[in-house]
């Protein structure tokens, strides 16, 4: 059926213009807020002012008296069914510790009650009139304290549970645990010539997607609930809302229109159950949109981690032991508590060879804003520790770090025991690497930044420059667990409808999946009409996370297109009166010995003429491995020793993502991830007061980069061919964000000789380190 030869691609590996591009660039109504629903009401949420408190009494009646207020919901008005907000496949490996509304609040910014009113202003005003009596409880903010005996118990409710048999001990604030051991760590450390032991501290971050969370719920003419929402996981939304409200899945439709970014923050069933409950109550359309402040405090965040990393290395560069222990802060609820900490190990430890590996991870609750999925998903945090330690160790043994990575990284044909040992809540999956362009990434990246010259340049004066680097890998999809599917049907003009559950959050997945379909069908991408992420119209897909869409959903599309192509050939065979095996296809024309037919002629024949049927097929895909994209990042920084301000001058990210289905979009993914990582390393942070309140929930004081801060960023795509991926593709969306923290830290060390073990590298922290080191 498919040609065995690798022919020149027509539609993939081509930088096509995004299929939704024209609509986006002309401001056509595309986002949730752009759809005006008649009789729509507005919701606002009452947030907790306390970090930890019981709601002893709550009286919504004064608020209900306000003209224009239609409903006020408290915990008494919703089913007490625990669920997880984590957008993951069922059964979710995150604790079921959330309720639509609860009689306890667990962080400043937790939900207390919700109002629905005719206007946003009335709803906002009504919040002040809800009477709440709190019993304030002691709170805990430091994960090291939270896990000690005697710490306040954040989830003391009897309903909190897990769907899988996992270690979950809320009575000691432990919401997840993982550990693995290979070989003998202590022996490995004894065999080493050098042992390094350091502690690293990685901080809270926010996705800061430009469109905050927003959901509209309405009822169609048959009374079915329709949820139009800014989400990365429409099918998980449907299932989890059904659970939380105790209604049937079949009575819910979830539609994701265009969304304004997510980066993991919308891999969360965050507000849909609440909005659904409100709409259910008033039987009218309801919209809830987060303000920017609410997005910072009551959205989701990157997990802070405290990492203890010990490595043992021989003089010749052999790593004899890696021992990583992580204490991860999940905030007040346990979304993604297990899977992220597993990922910290599974996406980092296999990068380099060692016979003795030990990994220990504990995730704990604290009375702080809730953490969730965030691009990199635990690998970002762990790569800071790993990348800095590798650089420090390279200096100890006297080897250039780039050369060392070249010697010890995992290669094609090799495996790591970590793959099988660390899954995401279930057993991991053993895999051999079948594509790896890391050597080329290291070579080209080093050349582009001018590594040898810049590494050894003299540093004097007020502004000192240095270079640093890190090698990285991530994964592509979650093997054996996640599934994606597609349906393709043919229209009489030779165009095709591609129906996919897969979720485009701006990444361009609609486009690249259309490209894959087009390549397989042998037609231009412009002939593919994409409909995505509608639980009534499109077949199942887990959604956009784990760098899955190209590798997993792409293969589902490819398989579906192959089935459709076979049907086309069968019809052509009937039309030409020749066996299908003798036919060839070129540019939408099927050639036989006796003649030729176009796709359009085949379509018309199949729909109207004889043995009529709809040319249509569906297929699904699960993956059996998670082939890592590999990357090498090189940063040149300038440190101002008088103020501690660090500036990135140039940043090079060389990346092997297999075949780039759309090179321009792949570069864009890389560049966006890199810049997000750079501002996370240098300027982004959560400032809390001593009572757990976040003091900077706005762009005034939570700083992300603008064009005026942009360093020179160079992306180098290093092509390889991953045999298990559609047209050789792997993934690219996450790996880029893992580089900046370690690469910049290593560059700072090269510039001023000071090692930083705590992120972010804000000026006062850097100046403090400079003074401690006695640099003038």
């Amino acid at each position: 059926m498919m040609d065995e030869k690798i022919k020149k691609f027509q539609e993939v590996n081509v930088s096509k213009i995004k299929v939704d591009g024209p609509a986006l660039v002309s401001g056509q109504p595309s986002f949730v807020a752009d759809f005006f629903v008649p009789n729509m009401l507005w919701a606002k949420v009452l947030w907790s002012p306390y970090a930890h408190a019981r709601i002893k009494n709550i009286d919504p009646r004064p608020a209900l008296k306000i003209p224009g207020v239609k409903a006020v919901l408290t915990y008494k008005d919703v089913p007490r069914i625990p669920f997880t907000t984590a957008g993951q496949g069922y059964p979710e490996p995150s604790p079921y510790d959330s309720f639509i509304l609860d009689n306890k609040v667990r962080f400043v910014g937790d939900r207390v009650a919700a109002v629905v009113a005719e206007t946003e202003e009335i709803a906002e005003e009504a919040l002040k009139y809800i009477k709440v009596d709190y019993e304030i409880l002691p709170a805990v903010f430091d994960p090291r304290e939270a896990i000690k005996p005697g710490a306040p118990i954040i989830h003391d409710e009897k309903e909190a549970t897990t769907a899988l048999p996992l270690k979950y001990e809320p009575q000691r604030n432990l919401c997840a645990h993982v550990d693995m051991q290979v070989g003998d760590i202590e022996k490995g450390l004894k065999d080493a010539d050098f042992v390094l032991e350091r502690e690293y501290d990685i901080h809270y971050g926010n996705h800061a997607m430009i469109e905050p969370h927003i959901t509209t719920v309405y009822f169609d003419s048959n009374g079915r609930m329709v949820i139009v929402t800014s989400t990365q996981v429409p099918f998980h939304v449907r299932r989890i809302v059904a659970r939380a409200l105790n209604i049937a899945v079949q009575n819910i439709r979830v539609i994701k229109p265009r969304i304004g970014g997510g980066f993991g923050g919308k891999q969360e069933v965050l507000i849909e159950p609440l909005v659904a409950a409100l709409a259910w109550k008033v039987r009218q359309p309801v919209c809830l949109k987060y303000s920017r402040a609410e997005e910072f405090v009551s959205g989701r965040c990157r997990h802070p981690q405290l990492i203890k990393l010990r490595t043992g290395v021989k003089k010749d560069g052999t790593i004899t032991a890696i021992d990583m222990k992580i204490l991860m802060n999940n905030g007040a609820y346990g979304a993604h508590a297990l899977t992220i900490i597993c990922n910290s190990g599974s996406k980092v430890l296999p990068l380099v060879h060692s016979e003795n590996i030990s990994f220990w991870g504990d995730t704990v609750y604290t009375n702080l804003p809730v953490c969730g999925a965030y691009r990199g998903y635990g690998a970002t945090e762990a790569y800071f520790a790993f990348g800095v330690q590798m650089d420090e160790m390279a200096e100890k043994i006297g080897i250039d770090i780039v050369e060392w990575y070249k010697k010890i990284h995992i290669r094609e044909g090799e495996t790591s025991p970590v793959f099988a040992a660390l899954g995401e809540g279930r057993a991991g999956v053993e895999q051999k690497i079948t594509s790896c362009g890391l050597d080329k990434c290291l070579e080209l990246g080093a050349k582009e930044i001018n590594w040898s010259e810049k590494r050894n340049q003299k540093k004097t004066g007020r502004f000192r420059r240095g270079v640093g680097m890190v090698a990285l890998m991530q994964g592509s999809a979650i093997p054996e667990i996640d599934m994606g599917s597609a349906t393709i049907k043919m229209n009489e003009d030779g165009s095709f409808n591609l129906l996919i559950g897969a979720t485009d959050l701006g990444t361009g997945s609609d486009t690249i999946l259309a490209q894959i379909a087009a390549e397989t069908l042998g037609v231009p991408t412009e002939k593919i009409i994409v409909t995505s992420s509608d639980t009534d119209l499109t077949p199942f897909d887990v959604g956009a996370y784990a760098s899955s869409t190209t590798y997993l959903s792409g293969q589902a599309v490819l398989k579906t297109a192959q089935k459709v192509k076979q049907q086309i050939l069968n019809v052509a065979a009937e039309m030409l009166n020749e066996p299908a095996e003798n036919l060839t296809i070129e540019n939408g024309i099927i050639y036989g010995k006796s003649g030729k037919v176009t796709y359009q002629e085949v379509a018309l024949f199949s729909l109207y003429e004889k043995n009529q049927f709809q040319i249509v097929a569906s297929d699904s895909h699960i993956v059996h491995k998670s082939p890592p994209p590999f990357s090498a990042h090189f940063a040149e920084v300038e440190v101002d020793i008088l103020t501690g301000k660090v500036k990135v001058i140039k940043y090079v990210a060389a990346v092997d993502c297999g075949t780039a289905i759309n090179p321009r979009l792949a570069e864009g993914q890389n560049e966006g991830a890199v810049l997000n990582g750079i501002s996370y390393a240098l300027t982004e942070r959560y400032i809390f007061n001593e009572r757990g309140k976040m003091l900077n929930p706005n762009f005034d004081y939570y700083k992300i980069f603008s064009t005026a801060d942009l360093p020179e960023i160079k992306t180098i795509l290093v092509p390889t061919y991953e045999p298990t991926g559609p047209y050789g593709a792997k993934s690219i969306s996450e790996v880029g964000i893992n580089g900046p923290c370690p690469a910049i830290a290593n560059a700072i060390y090269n510039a001023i000789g000071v090692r930083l073990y705590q992120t972010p590298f804000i000026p006062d922290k850097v100046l403090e380190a400079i003074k401690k080191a006695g640099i003038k």
Partner: protein
Amino acid sequence: MLKIRPIINGEKKELDLKDPLETLLDFLRRHHYVGVKEGCRQGQCGACTVLVDGRPVNSCLYLAIRTDGKEITTIEGLGRPGNLNFIQQAFLETGAVQCGYCTPGMVLSTRALLDKNPRPTEEEIKIALDGNLCRCTGYVKIIEAVKLAAQKLKNKK
């Protein structure tokens, strides 16, 4: 019912104000110019950018009542699918559009820049767009888009 008469995308309009202090952002969206986006309501993200008499402003901090008699340009005024203007086209061709939420603001800031300075340097481009935040692209291809738009403008003349 308070009405004002702005000129929106070249069309003389007479539109009602919800109240005297309605922001231009809310006013425009209420009158179905949904290309103007809400991102922060604090003048920090630029998703709400529109041009008032050719100047790019944060419409979330601009009173609608002040636009009486003034020319407002929103993204809808630049072009539609099938008839995009050269800046929109440049953004598509360089891959500068990912989620698209910051895009209308970026395109309008670009328009304001090129109207005043058709041959901007990279530094001038960065300053002109420094009020439009983007979290998806890392800005690299957006800067390329502005350069390409300037090139297209030069070729048109």
